[in-house]
């Protein structure tokens, strides 16, 4: 964390939820924004849906940090603004990975952030959807403990190794709760819009954020280490064609992972299109080449195709794995591959809204080793005896 980061203290009492809601309520009453886009518990149910709220229903039903990620927040922002900006000023309250995915969608032209205040929070992680579906109450109790700061093995695998759980740079304003005193929350602006909220509330960025900064740095260090260790082990289990085939062997081609992915940006998935519908003779030919053809076909190709499309922007949010009915560790695979691809381009998805996606930028002097090996291969083709 850079030392130039500054923040303001918004004084409030209660648990994390109450303090955050107090801030949002105050900001609405001061006219900083008109309403909030936030996970809301539908009355009388265990479920959370992203909704626009303000006033009483905000205080009663909104949950800035629900125990599960039933919908990725970036998808909610794109549902709201995919067709353009609205008239109202909306504060979207999202987890850091959701803020980062929103920034990626911004680069892809699939959200309009002009009237959106993107606000992220320190994220304790989320619990697996499958656990929650089985026993919502028990899951919520476990999450309450996690919110109090208890480390937990019950978090989703990608959350346990997440090293971008705090401010990321994609948001207008970050809410710091880690290591902060109970008397309030830290508001850390990252854009003029974020600063505008502080001005509107009459707050100045003079708070001492060193305790938060230290807590974030320390946990980031731990998580980086955990991530590295985990990925080394995971790589040894999944690398190579046989392991890859086995990892995805139980895929039933439901495409749930694609539908819930905040990044998967195609308006119609290629694999749902007529391009993938072939004549019977083609399928039979393919079967004859190998003795048998797995059906529906292209299960692994689908994952590789999806990976090729979105891995540079993959924020490791884990929504894909949560939605998989056959418990394939799809988020872990995508996080591994995405992380490596991103490193190649020195790109962190959602780090900044202004940083263009690597595939949109031409750099003359990049990946020379690939060029050389390609040149070598074609030279060999021309002179097979060389």
């Amino acid at each position, binding site marked *: 964390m850079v030392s130039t980061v500054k923040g303001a203290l918004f004084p409030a009492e209660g648990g994390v939820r109450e303090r955050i809601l107090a801030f949002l309520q105050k900001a609405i009453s001061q006219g900083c924004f008109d309403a909030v886009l936030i996970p809301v518990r539908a009355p009388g149910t265990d479920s959370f849906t992203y909704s626009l709220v303000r006033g009483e229903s905000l205080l009663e039903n909104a949950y800035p940090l629900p125990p599960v990620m039933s919908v990725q927040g970036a998808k909610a922002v794109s*549902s709201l603004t995919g067709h353009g900006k609205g008239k109202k000023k909306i504060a979207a309250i999202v987890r850091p990975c959701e803020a980062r995915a929103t920034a990626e969608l911004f680069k892809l032209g699939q959200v309009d952030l002009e009237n959106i205040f993107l606000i992220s929070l320190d994220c304790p992680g989320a619990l697996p959807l499958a656990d929650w579906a089985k026993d919502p109450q028990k899951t919520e109790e476990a999450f309450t403990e996690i919110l109090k700061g208890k480390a937990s093995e019950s978090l989703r695998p990608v959350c346990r190794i997440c090293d971008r759980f705090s401010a990321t740079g994609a948001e207008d304003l970050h809410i710091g709760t880690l290591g902060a005193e109970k008397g309030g929350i830290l508001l850390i602006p990252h854009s003029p819009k974020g600063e505008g909220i502080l001005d509107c509330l009459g707050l100045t960025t003079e708070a001492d954020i060193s305790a938060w900064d230290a807590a974030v740095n320390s946990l980031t260090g731990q998580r980086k280490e955990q991530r590295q260790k985990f990925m080394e082990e995971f790589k040894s289990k999944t690398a190579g064609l046989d392991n890859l085939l086995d990892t995805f062997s139980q895929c039933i081609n439901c495409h749930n992972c694609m539908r819930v992915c905040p990044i998967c940006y195609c*308006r119609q998935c290629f694999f749902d299109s007529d391009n993938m519908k072939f004549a019977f003779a083609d399928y*039979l030919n393919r079967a004859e080449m190998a003795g048998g053809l797995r059906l529906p076909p292209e299960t692994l190709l689908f994952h590789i195709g999806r990976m090729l499309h979105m891995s540079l922007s993959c924020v490791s949010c884990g929504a894909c794995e949560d939605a998989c009915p056959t418990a394939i560790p799809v988020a872990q695979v995508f996080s591994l591959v995405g992380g490596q691809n991103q490193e190649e381009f020195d790109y962190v998805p959602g780090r900044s809204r202004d940083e263009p996606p690597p595939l949109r930028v031409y750099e003359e002097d990049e990946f020379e080793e690939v060029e050389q090996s390609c040149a070598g291969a074609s030279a060999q083709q021309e002179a097979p005896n060389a």
Partner: protein
Amino acid sequence: MPKVLRSNKGTEECLLELLRFLLESGKVSGVFALRKVGESGGVAYSLITDPDTLKEALPLFPLMPANAAKVLSRLTLVEPANQPIAAVVRPCELRALTELIKRSQGSLDNLLLISSTCGGAYPLKTAVNGNIEEKLPAYWEAVKKAEIPPDIRPACAACEHFVPYNADMTVALVGNKDVDKQCLIHLNNDKAEQFASGMAGELIGGEIDSEIIESLRSKRQARGKELFDELGVSEGFDVRKFFDKCIGCRGCSKICPVCYCHVCFFDSGGDEHEPSYYETELERNGYGQVLPAPIFYQLVRLFHVSLSCVECGLCADVCPVDIPLWAVAIKTAGSVQESFDYLPGRDLEEELPVTAFKPEEFAAVVD
């Protein structure tokens, strides 16, 4: 007198032998059946052309990784099979295929349809946990006794249509007390007899024992009632309470064999809104739900599929949040089908109620 191919071998072994015979004799060019995939205990449908590969086939494995109708429709959508293929499918899969054919989404040409009296399938998650193998002995014991195997999917435990309609061949499983040492394959028509001719085994006369079938049917009816009562699903129940956990992945539509739209309305952008829509909701109600919006989606889907729903239960099986979609489907589809006296997949010649105009129908509604 209907004919039965009988041999003193385990049923699965004998079925595999028949498939191998069909393939090796050139009577078929391929076999469509479940086959082992990977090391973690899963199965997937395969189009098998090599008799050696056929060794990996598990045609009667009690798991349903896809509804075969959806896959066979995909194979024959662009053009009918140009070579004969033997397909081993469950009764509900066969019914769904019939519905898709009625909707011009596939072809039966060149397909030899082999089905069985079905004992049911386990939830997909059972295979994921890797403990399906240990369940198999109890499964086959129950099938032999015409009972409901423990832990099978609720949709199967409540299924009353476990005897196939329109199969060319029917493998006797339910109530076949010697299923592991005696094989009975009913040849339901001339086509089946022609394909089976030359196959080792004796041809005897016989029919599927309707008493045994009825006894299982009544057990399943009773279990169905219990399951519905547990879920609180009854006449006029409020479907909305089931949908609140929905995360909007729409896996239920993607895997549904009879979700027939070429492009789903919900993939078409048809349900997207301008921001003003949500802002108006906020003004009117004090809140505006943005995502997911499952009620509209689920009701539209029910509206589309309920006439052709064969209650295969795959929708519930793929639901990441365990919504009992099978129960919703059975209750709503069941009553829609009943009001038209229509059973999907019973008969290819039976017209879809919405495509047949009857001047005298639903007089009460007309009035």
